[in-house]
């Protein structure tokens, strides 16, 4: 195994002890089954960024620049104010650009701790709507395309 390889442990055990054990053994991240591929991809990207980050921790996509240290989003140099959930959502979408991200995956990512909700994703739509609107106003582009009843694609 390469020395600089990132390690994500995927396990069905979700006890805090198990997570801590895994992280103490040198794992970079711990993902509990069941999970979504979009989640796995976002975590891999995060590890990749952390391992390769030189100087500024920036994430670029098209006109959008995300400063991960400052938790700041800039469009062509202008700062865009986002709520915490919108910020997390944007990062998730950029990590999964050009892929359909399901509502389920989004909810599990953003509300992992309290995902005791049934099938109603109403609260999710509000956040997406707001993020979509802010990006549309700042860039003049609609990055989101809705995939019938199942999720969104960011491109």
């Amino acid at each position, binding site marked *: 195994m390469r020395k600089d390889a990132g390690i994500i442990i*995927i*396990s*069905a*055990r*979700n*006890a*805090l*002890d198990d997570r801590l054990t895994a992280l103490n053994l040198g794992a970079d991240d711990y993902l*509990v*089954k*069941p*999970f*979504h*591929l*979009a989640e796995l991809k976002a975590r891999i990207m995060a590890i990749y960024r952390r391992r390769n980050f030189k100087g500024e921790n920036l994430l670029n996509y098209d006109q959008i620049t995300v400063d991960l240290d400052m938790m700041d989003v800039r469009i062509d140099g202008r700062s865009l104010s986002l709520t915490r*959930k919108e910020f997390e959502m944007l990062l998730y979408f950029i990590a999964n650009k050009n*892929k*359909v991200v*399901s*509502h*389920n*995956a989004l909810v599990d990512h953003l*509300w992992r*701790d*309290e*995902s*005791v*909700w*049934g*099938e*109603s994703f*109403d*609260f999710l739509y*509000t*956040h997406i709507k707001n993020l979509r609107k802010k990006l549309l106003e700042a860039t003049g582009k609609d990055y989101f395309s809705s*995939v*019938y*009843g*199942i*999720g969104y694609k960011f491109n």
Partner: protein
Amino acid sequence: MKLLSKYTLVSLSVSLIIFVIGGIIYFKTISYLSDQQLDRDLTEEFAEKVGFIDQHQRFPKPFEFDTYEAKFQGIGQSSEATRSTDTIVSTNSGEKTIPCRAIIGTVRFHGTNYRMIITASTETTQSVLKLVSTITLALIILLFMTLLIVNRIVFERIWQPFYQLLRHLKDFSLTGEPKPITVNPTKIKEFVELNEAIVHMEERAKDEYQSLKFFTENASHEMMTPVALINSKLDNLIQDETLNSAQLEQLNDIYSASRRLSHLNQSLLLLVKIDNGLIHDVSELDLSKCIKQKVAQFEDVMLEKNIKINLNLLPKTIKASKYLIDILISNLLSNAIRHNYTGGETAIFLDESMLSIENTGNEQLLDTRRIFERFEKSPSSEGTGLGLTIARNICLTYGFKLEYQFTPPFHRFFVLF
């Protein structure tokens, strides 16, 4: 009551009873025997006196018979059968009375019947009896003291292994490090057996605990892996741009089902863990802080349903697992939101004695006996039907009580600490 006190009390009362019975028997026997002896003497005396009267045709004078004194009373022609009896005689001076044994009979003299009474003092017998009683009493006291002292010494020595085992059992923990039993070597068979039984029982309890733990871990692994597979295949499948809306709708249903399945699995496993005490990361928790955190997490959802929340939180700390308490608050709060209507109200109240979470909602009393049962839920509910069962069992784990009340328009769940 301590074993020693109980044992001493029983042995003392038994010896007391036996001594009392023994004393009575002694007393009766001695009295009976001495009466027998006196009666024999008196009967002989009686016969001699009757013979004397027949022979001499006069009543004997007191000095003519050495010991016993006789009295005569004329009773005309009536006659009395000879009998022995206890009686009391006054001394000549009349100051003292002496307990006596007497024989009473009839003697015929000059055509008239006389009652003849011959008495004998029983003072000697009485003093013997007194002596016996005193000795018996002294023995009782001596025995009691000896029993008390011997019991204490012997008891503490003999039962020492027992108390050591008891201490060991009190310290026993399923999850902790196994501690060797430190018992002084004993030859008493019962304690040796008890010792063996405890060692055996502890080993078995630990084994069962371990196998249960492995079972839940394996079950969780075996159930979550296929669900993870379904999810990742679905995630791949929806990337296909040729899918039409009808197909996507079906895929969405599969998503929902797999999501529900994974929640159900997690909830059931959580119940098994709670019920078997597999979660024990107990720490001191600031409950009002936990509640505020949870409320912040649910903010989005409450905003979406335009639900107003009132918080009235007084400081309260408890010793419990943060993981479980988070689940407890989360379950109650999510119920309060989920079963609320748009524009409704929720209130959380916390003080030293209780936590209450109330919400507006369907104006109908829930079935208080059944809401805490597994899979008991309203037909419209999207939950797993395990949320309240989990909440109740978490409460039971820490000796809290979870109760439900409906005071229109508020449904109220409260945890009594």
